[in-house]
């Protein structure tokens, strides 16, 4: 889990400028910088977490994101990691069913905190279809890698879908129809996380 989180941090750092550019087009242009700052702080804590269970590692990740990212992305991703951590408390390994449960809890946390649903041009437009694909695959008996591959594809489609819709949540909602045509930065960062997870399991 520590290696996966480090890989996510590296991916976010690599895409920092692109995420900020996407955010700049529809809102206040700090998504990439803030997320990179948050994951830098996570990485700084990870080595001390070696040997801890997955739940504790994810909980620490969530708490760190909440206290360093700020804005809206901090509480949203922070809550997601904390909720996932709570589901995986005490586990040292994660199978497909665990991931389904953790992701369900994470999405539930985001919906509760952000009072958002799909179709509002948010990270949920990548995460919800990915979860549905993952759950379907695991329940049909596919192995984790196959199911997650489909989930990542669904997230990617979800990111594309955000270009076609209007923002009705967050700062991008102030510009209304002018948000159509722009890709949502939150959905994009969520897709990067799932893609990195797949590449590292």
């Amino acid at each position: 889990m520590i290696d996966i989180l480090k890989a996510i941090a590296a991916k976010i750092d690599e895409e920092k400028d692109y995420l900020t550019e996407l955010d700049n087009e529809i809102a206040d242009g700090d998504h990439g910088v803030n997320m990179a700052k948050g994951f830098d702080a996570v990485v700084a804590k990870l080595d001390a977490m070696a040997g801890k269970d997955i739940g504790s590692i994810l909980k620490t990740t969530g708490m760190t994101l909440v206290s360093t990212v700020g804005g809206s992305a901090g509480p949203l991703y922070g809550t997601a990691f904390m909720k996932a951590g709570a589901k995986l408390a005490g586990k040292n390994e994660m199978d497909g069913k665990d991931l389904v449960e953790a992701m369900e809890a994470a999405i539930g946390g985001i919906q509760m905190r952000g009072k958002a649903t799909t179709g509002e041009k948010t990270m949920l437009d990548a995460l919800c279809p990915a979860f549905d694909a993952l759950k379907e695959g695991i329940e049909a008996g596919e192995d984790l890698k196959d199911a997650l591959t489909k989930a990542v594809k669904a997230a990617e489609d979800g990111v594309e879908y955000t270009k076609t819709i209007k923002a009705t949540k967050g700062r991008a909602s102030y510009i209304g129809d002018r948000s159509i045509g722009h890709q949502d930065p939150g959905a994009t960062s969520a897709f990067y996380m799932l893609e990195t997870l797949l590449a590292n399991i």
Partner: protein
Amino acid sequence: MKKLINEVVNVEEEMILGLVKSAPDKLRKLDCGTVVVRANKKEGKVALVSGGGSGHEPAHGGYVGEGMLDGAVAGAVFTSPTPDQIYEAIKAVATDKGVLCIVKNYTGDIMNFEMAIDMAKDEGIKADYVVVNDDVAVKDSLYTTGRRGVAGTVLVHKIAGALAEKGASLEEVKAVAEKVIANVRTMGMAITACTMPAAGKPGFELADNEMEIGIGIHGEPGTSREALKPANAIAEELLNKITDDIDFVGKEVAVIVNGMGGTPLMELYIVNNFVHDYLDKKGIKIYDTMVGNYMTSIEMAGFSITLLRLDDELKSLYNAKADTPALKR
């Protein structure tokens, strides 16, 4: 960028330290971060906590003191403070009567305050919050995040603070805060942009003959960009929008002519002169007027006008004693 600062990363911390040193008998900074609380905690009252990004000084740390806030949390410039900092503020000021947080309507602020309140509740602290959304420039609909919280927030601090000081319950203080929110409206404009220290360049560009109407307090664009016109005509445009939103005719109002940080008082008084004439003509009675920098946007040049409809209850609380660095009564 030309600013009177030292290192960009130290702006918030040094600002809060300087604020506290300006009123050491009244204010104290918490060691955990950029959080200001009253130097002498008062028990037996509902504690009020507000906060938001830095850059809006004197909001909110300047409003900590008798008759107003008990604690204020300053995030990075124009960025919501994080839940752990808000939680520390709540914990530091909490009394048996509970804590009411006064939050401006921005997605990040609301989420971070909600998380902090959840953390406080887990510790057995009674805590609740209200959301201020007085900016008539932004359309309030199902399809947006809703109106922003701007200068009217100061009147929520003032009036809810006065009732809390008298020992009212959390429910009563929340109700009066919501009453202020229901009756206060604001609209602003700018003739120059502001520069966030970390960004180093202005958030937008305005030509010499341009102004931005309906501006927020984070340098975010307003509702329209127009050719600059005389102060009276600008004030009239803002007042029309405000008085169209709720009915002020025949009512008594408190007025704030608020500077955005870089506006000379000379210009604010010119605006205020027109505001009084306009309200007189409309049959709106002015109970009291505040002119000055109450909710700013760093060095932005511009102003906002706030009107609050008053009844006897609100008038008496408006008049109650306040002793804070930025507002005394």
